[in-house]
């Protein structure tokens, strides 16, 4: 197990390096003169020269890459072209907002998805099963930005139940401590504000949860069906144990590995989906940060935003890989 963990950790190195190369090349692979592209056609030659110098674009490529790598490793994520702020100093609130949103979405996806899958498998070929699977099919086929727009239209505009945009009200009195607003409101004892934050969170979280929820439901159903047909479940049934007990106690435990895999993979989908969801709901996460940067051609921010998201994805998968070993002792590591 330890040897495997170390091996897995070492395998991260080339992936992380490759990731930095790809992110690095976002600026450098732009055809023509990157500085010109970034500043637009009306830029003065001095401005282009200045930008070239500040981004180090006038040096040889490999020098630029190693400078970039050194910067990233020392926590220097560059400077935003829009407002000249150090990206490293302003990225955390965005990151926190995305973590809060993704976490909420994953929670919804897992709770509903796993339970729907179990019930579907348990009541195979019943009406419940059919409905759940049709809903799941629509779920995986849904453009989440469209779902988000409909949510806003129905629940904010028509019914006026939930706020349509942002992470808090304008009148919010939450003072950021961790920047995870749910945590902050609780730390500050502002329970009314906590509810306000939850209300903002519901719609984007549901939109973001849809696809993973559907995939988790389908996956849970098929792995549960496999387990439910196995001999030891039949034995348990024969011994007269209650079916509900059997399903949740025995079967779920064994169906957990494939489910865990899906959850690991879905995190990527979710972090990607965050860009669309955050754009629609004005959620000030890292997705919106990148989206705004794209609109403003703020390449350093685009680079760093993508770098951070990819890094998070890699780390989540790394942790999921290690969890396999803890959950299933049968898994052998090469």
């Amino acid at each position: 197990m330890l040897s495997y963990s170390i091996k897995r950790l070492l395998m991260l190195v080339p992936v992380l390096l490759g990731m930095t190369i790809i992110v690095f090349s976002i600026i450098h692979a732009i055809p023509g003169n990157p500085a010109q592209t970034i500043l637009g056609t009306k830029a003065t030659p001095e401005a282009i020269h200045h930008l070239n110098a500040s981004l180090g674009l006038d040096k040889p490529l490999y020098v630029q890459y190693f400078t970039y790598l050194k910067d990233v490793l020392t926590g220097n994520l560059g400077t935003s072209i829009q407002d000249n702020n150090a990206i490293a100093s302003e990225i955390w609130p965005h990151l926190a907002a995305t973590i809060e949103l993704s976490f909420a979405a994953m929670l919804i996806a897992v709770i509903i998805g796993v339970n729907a899958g179990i019930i579907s498998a348990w009541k195979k070929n019943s009406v419940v099963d059919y409905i759940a699977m049709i809903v799941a099919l629509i779920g995986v086929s849904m453009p989440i930005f469209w779902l988000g727009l409909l949510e806003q239209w129905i629940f904010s505009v028509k019914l006026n139940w939930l706020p349509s945009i942002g992470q808090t009200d304008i009148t919010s009195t939450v003072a950021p401590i961790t920047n995870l607003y749910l945590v902050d409101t609780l730390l500050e004892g502002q329970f009314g504000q906590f509810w306000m934050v939850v209300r903002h969170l519901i719609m984007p979280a549901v939109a973001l949860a849809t696809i993973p929820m559907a995939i988790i439901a389908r996956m849970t159903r098929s792995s549960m069906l496999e387990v439910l047909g196995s001999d030891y479940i039949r034995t348990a049934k024969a011994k007269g144990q209650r079916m509900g007990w059997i399903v949740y106690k025995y079967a779920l435990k064994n169906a957990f590995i494939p489910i865990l895999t899906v959850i690991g993979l879905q995190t990527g989908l979710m972090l990607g989906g965050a860009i669309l969801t955050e754009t629609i709901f004005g959620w000030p996460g890292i997705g919106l940060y990148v989206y705004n940067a794209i609109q403003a051609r703020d390449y350093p921010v685009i680079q760093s935003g993508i770098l951070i998201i990819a890094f998070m994805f890699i780390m989540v998968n790394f942790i999921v890989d290690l969890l396999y070993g803890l959950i299933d002792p049968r898994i052998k590591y090469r």
Partner: protein
Amino acid sequence: MSELLLDVANLKKYYPIKQGVFNKTKETVRAVDGVSFKVNKGETLGIVGESGCGKSTTGRMIMRLIEPTDGKVIFEGQDILNLSKHEMRKVRKDIQMIFQDPFASLNPRQTVGQIIEEPMIVHKMGDRKKRQARVQELLELVGLSAYHAKRYPHQFSGGQRQRIGIARALAVEPKLIIADEPVSALDVSVQSQVLNLLQDLQKKLNLTYIFIAHDLSVVRHISNRVGVMYLGKMVELADSETLYREPKHPYTQALLSAVPIPDPENKTKRIILSGDVPSPAHPPSGCPFHDRCPVAKAICSEEIPHLRELADGRLVSCHLVD
């Protein structure tokens, strides 16, 4: 003495076992450890041993399907281990192989005709018309019918599939055929049919066989000479008549005693070997067979015996035989 076709000298195949974070070689598996033998034109050499003794690996190394770690394979006077890829392809025309599993060795998506024709395409023999005529001829030769060419492998029985495999091997008119347990996957009733076919073909086409098997009874009638392998080494090699009449090596004796003899008068005692075949990663010291040998002496666990020629021309590797 007839003409020498193949001379295998000190052939070795070692597999490193890699472990840990840095893939350090922890130990080596000596799958084949210094095997030597000669094959003359027109004869059949049987190679017999339990599974895992390295007999199939030896066969595959002769064709360089597995690259040997060390040794020489001299075919018609040239060491084929030194040949370039390109030169090797020419030699492959002269050496063909028949495989053990008649279900796995035929591509399920090709017709029988395509399967048999393919070696001729690869070696650029004849035009399409000639090749297809040859396919028909080969099918008849191995006891199938010309119209079978359009069928797919799954439409045939195991024995018929093995005939297809034989036809494929014959397509390029090889000089040497390595038959790697060609009948062990077949029903006993079909085994003798395929063995008879192989013998008929040998007479008709003047073929040379290396016939690999895990059981002595199968090779008895087809082989001129038989080599017995144990744990990557050749332990005895002799004319089949000599070997079957009077096996010298205790391992050969044990194997032979396991062959059922349909004669109630025969009271030969069965020698039951104790224990399992040791792992080739940890071969016993001295004679590799000593820990299972019913007659082992002290010297057997200390010194490695070498293959020696006895007065009657046979080769044996045992301290206790003279």
